[in-house]
């Protein structure tokens, strides 16, 4: 179970070292659903999964930011991934959960919740099950956040680089939110 290296994630998507990408990305992924599509998050990015709780809106934030929650005394921002991915917004269901993710940015842990339709499972994706993202997607570099495409049975799982999902500015914004609330 090789741990996906944070630095390599960024470089791999752009450098396109096809033979290595599977081995680099193989590992456990927390899979979840948005609409009918499946996405995967590297397990080590996931802090925990919590059920849907009251989200406090923060004024004058971007639309995809649902607000902040109080997670055991710690205020973290919650991002609506549907909104972020330009999907139509829907009402929350009893399956809607918040996946709390965390990663380090210059030794500062960035924590945030992402709102997904349904959490599926912790899936072990082997190297041969992973393919690089097709060039088609990478137009304008807007889809850099896709690490690769995982295949399980007949399903297709978009492996997300959560750090790329939000741009640096947005991340900073989130962090400022987090800091201001903290």
């Amino acid at each position, binding site marked *: 179970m090789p741990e996906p290296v944070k630095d390599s994630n960024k470089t791999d998507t752009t450098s396109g070292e096809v033979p290595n990408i599977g081995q680099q990305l193989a590992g*456990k992924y927390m899979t979840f659903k948005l609409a009918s599509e499946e996405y995967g998050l590297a397990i080590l990015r996931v802090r925990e999964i919590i*059920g849907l709780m009251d989200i406090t809106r923060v004024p004058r934030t971007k639309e995809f930011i649902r607000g902040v929650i109080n997670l055991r005394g710690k205020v973290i921002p919650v991002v609506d991934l549907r909104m972020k991915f330009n999907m139509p917004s829907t009402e929350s269901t009893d399956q809607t959960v918040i996946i709390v993710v965390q990663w380090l940015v210059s030794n500062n842990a960035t924590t945030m919740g992402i709102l997904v339709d349904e959490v599926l499972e912790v899936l072990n994706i082997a190297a041969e099950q992973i393919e690089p993202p097709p060039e088609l997607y990478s137009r304008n570099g807007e889809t850099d956040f896709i690490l690769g495409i995982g295949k399980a049975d007949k399903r297709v799982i978009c492996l997300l680089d959560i750090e790329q999902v939000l741009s640096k500015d947005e991340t900073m914004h989130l962090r400022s939110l987090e800091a201001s609330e903290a």
Partner: protein
Amino acid sequence: MLNDIKTSTKLLFGFGLAIAVTLIIGIVGRQALVTASEHMDDIGKNRMPSLYGVQEMIAGQLHVAAGQRGLVNRRMMEHGVRQGNYDEIATGLRQAADGRKVYEALPMAPEEQRIWSSFVPRWDEWQRNVQSTVDIEKEKDALLSSGAKGDDPRVTQIDDKAMEFMSRARDARSESNKALADIARLNNDFGKTAVQQSEAAASKNISVMLTAMFIGSMIAAVVGLSIARSIKNALDALHREATRLAQAAVAGQLATRADVMVVPAEFRGIVQGVNDTLDAVINPLNVAADYVDKISKGDIPPKITDTYNGDFNVIKGNLNKCIDSLSGLLGTMSTMYEAQRAGDIEAYVDVTQFQGAYRQLAQGVNDGVKSIIDNTLTILDTVSSYSEGDFTPVMRRLPGKQVVANERMDKLRQNLMALVADAKVLSIAAVEGKLAVRADASKHQGDYRKIVQGVNETLDAVIGPLNVAANYVDRISKGEVPAKITDNYNGDFNVIKNNLNQLVNNLNQLVDDMGVMSKQHDAGDIDVKIPEERFEGAYRVMAKGVNDMVFGHIAVKKKAMACLAEFAAGNFDAPLEKFPGKKVFINENIELLRRNSKALVTDAIMLSKAAVEGKLATRADASKHQGDFRKIVQGVNETLDAVIGPLNVSADYVDKISKGSIPAKITDTYNGDFNTIKNNLNQCIDAVNNMVADAGLLAKAAVEGKLATRADASKHQGDYRKIVQGVNETLDAVIGPLNVSADYVDKISKGNIPERITDTYNGDFNTIKNNLNKCIDAVNRMAGDATMLAKAAVEGKLATRADATKHEGDFRKIVQGVNETLDAVIGPLNVSADYVDKISRGNIPPKITDSYNGDFNTIKNNLNRCVDAVNSLVADTETLVRASIEGKLSTRADASKHEGDYRRIVDGVNKTLDAVIAPVMEAAGALETLARYDLRARVTGDYQGDHARIKDALNGTAKALQDALSQVADAVEQVSEASQQIAGSSQAVSQGASEQASSLEETSSSLEEMAGMTKQNADNTIQARSLAQTTKEAAEKGGTAMIRMTDAMEKIRAASQGTADIIKDINEIAFQTNLLALNAAVEAARAGDAGRGFAVVAEEVRNLALRSKEAAKKTEDLIKVAVGHAENGRVITNEVAGSLTEIVTAAAKVNDIVSEIAVASQEQSRGIEQVNTAVAEMDKVVQTAASNAEESSSAAEELASQSEELSSLVQRFELDRDNRTASRRHAPAAKEAASPRRAAMHPATIPPPRRGAVIVNRAKRPNGANGTTHKPSPEDLIPLEKDPEFQDF
């Protein structure tokens, strides 16, 4: 004269003259010119060079003189200038010498010679002096060059010498110059003379030439004009001839040709050409006309074999076609005839060669054209031969009339060439048969145009009818016989027209006769012939050929027909003789026909046998036959297929229809008769269906009792209509008598007994009629008996009974019943009457001890009670009477012993006694006074109430008596009248009562029946009510059960909801567990290898969570289904509950209605009983009323006598006459006083209804008992108008 000369000769002559004149002119001119030339020679060769030489000499002298002067001049001492002067002198000398040489060479005139000889010494002198001057000067030059100065004397000497020389030279020169001038003058004079001479010669020559020219021109003009006129004449003649030809052609005179002799010889070629053209055109025309003529006369000429071109070929083709068709017809007919007669013979008509004239025409035209060209060439040759010298171009260029002549010649030549060309074109076109070709007249001018137009018109006139004829011949050759030509043509065209018309006539005649014959033959008259004698030539041959052929055919045909007739008669073995030649084919064909027919017959027999045996599948073997016979057999087979297919279908349908199973309509498409069959079957199905529908309708109507309903026969057709009409008539026959009997029964049931039925019916209807009549008789008898009984009852003959033996069956039972009823009614009635009678008579009988039933018992009891009451009343009355007799006015009857009104009577009596006794005393006194007829007595005591009223009454009575008695006499009269009226009324009442009695009898019997029916109704209703009740209860039970069920469902739903909540909880738990498991997995992942086990556990936990979620989901689904079912059940239950509620409501309503019906029925029953009772009582009352009426009547009579008695009594009274008027004023008071009695009566006269009769009966008794003492008024006895019952009644 001139005309006879050939134009060429004329032209030659003319040209000759012209040339001669020209020659003269030329010679004269030449002579003149020679003279002039000589002069000019002299001038040019002698004079002019002489002058030149003279002039040269003079010029040279002048040069020399100038040089001399230069040399002499001292101012011109330069060497160059001097040298120039030397040169000048040299040149001058040379020039002078040249001039002298020139002049000396020339011949000199004598004068000249003379002058010249004088000149020469001077000239030489001059020359010497000049030379001397030059020499001196050269010395001077040498001197000067040696250095001598100008003013050197030597030089001056030289100069002087030079001057001298020079002056000498000048003198010589002037003299020589003089001579030279003379010479020049002389030469000039010579020249002038020569010029004058030549001028004179020229002018002479000019006049000569002019004269010659004039003469020549005149001659040329005369000749030209004459030639022109001759040509014009010739052209005119040509034009005339052309016009004449054109007119002749238009007139149809095709034989007309142009007269060659009228035109000049040169033009005869043209005319000849035109004639030839016409010949070429008209020849074929004539040939065609001849042919047409021949053809029209039936003389068929041989074919035209010549070769024609263009339209002639068409005409030829048409003619040949015509000939071909005609001769072909003839040939074919004769060939056919011959062939028919002797087998197959062929004949061919040989056609001789036809030689056309077109070649000649062409040749002629060519010759004509050639001669024209030759003539023209001759002229040209002549002209050219004349102009062969140098004069040819001059001549051409010459102006004036010669050119005109020349141009005319050219123009003439051109026109003639054009004409010739057109004639050539026309003749070539004519030879080629292009008859439409015409010359272009616009290319020509003047008469030439007329010529061309004339030729064109000639061609038009010729070719127009030609085309018509060609068209007719073409149409005739194509067999289309056109109408006759009615246009007018002239000459040969008319012949052509007539021939064509004759041809048309003959053809039409032939066609008509053939048509007639064929028509007659078609009509069967095969002996008809074409009348041959009517035709000529080939037409007759044709007609005869047709006749022969036809009869030959008919002969053979008759034989063949005889054989065929045998065939037709069915004898296929009939023999046929062998025909010769090709007619054998008839034998062969007939034999083949025989064979085929036999085969066909065999197959037909086979098929018919099979058909007879019903083997509809059997088919003939078509392969055994050939040609149309095969088609016949195939046709028969297909026909059989086609017939049997639909036959089977229709058989099937008919089978179904016959079995009553009406099939659906046939929707397949058939053709022809099968379609008819199909339509008939469909119609049959429709008709049967309609019949069934109508039968159903009738049956339904009959069941519903709508006997007037009939089937609509017009909807059906044929026998179906007859069936329906039969059914309708049957219904009419059945229902007619039925209606009559129903009407009768109706009338009978309504009591309106009709007359006997006298109509005649048959069978069962007769039985019905008889039964009805019997019924009518029985009812009539019954009615008679009832009337009789009623009458007897009215008459009080209660013993009268109907004779039951007169009636039969139930009627007898009815009568017996009535009799028994009467017995039953009258027995007790008699007893009660007896009792009442006794009671009324005061003879109170003992109590009735017999036992009666029902109402009679009531009557009995009432009577007994009445007896008791009356007995006690009598006893009390006796007591009171006794006491009152004894004067014991205080004695009172014991009212408690009595009941009801009796008690009231007794009480009343007692009270009356109490109240009465006090005032009675005074009243007694007053009355005593009154009794003494002293009507003035009055009661004076102060009384109140009734006593006051008694007092007032008494007083009033007294007064009234006083008043009344005075009027009593009148009153008595009135009373008498009133009693009469009463007697009448009583009579009427009595009559009414008897009528009532009979009505009551009927009512009674009807009521009897009604009672029975009502009872049954009541019973049924009770049963229905109990049933309805049971239903209602059952429904109510169902309702409660439903409510329980709904509750149960609701509980299920509630429980499901609870379960759903639990499942939601479970789901929530599963969800949370899943999250926990996932978080655990995350944690395990974070722990790396250490967390691997934990990851497994987390995975398991997650699986458990998923499983529990799934299980919860399944359960939820199941519960959802259950809830759905429960909900469904609830809805259904609600519906059922609603239905049950409706049932309960309905049942309750039914129950209520039935209950109401039951109650109503019971009430009805009771009411009917009461009515019955009432009727019975009414009966009694009526009886009583009747007797009372009689009594009233007698009472009225009695009243009359009593009124008389009264009047006598009144006489006895003493009346206060003064008070009479006053007493009258008190009459109302008297009435008031009388009212208590009436008031006392009222309670008795207004009893409860059923007690009324009894009261009346009771009222009778005092009447009977105290008849003499107290006479009640009829109104008192029977207050009819006051009794409400009677008023109602």
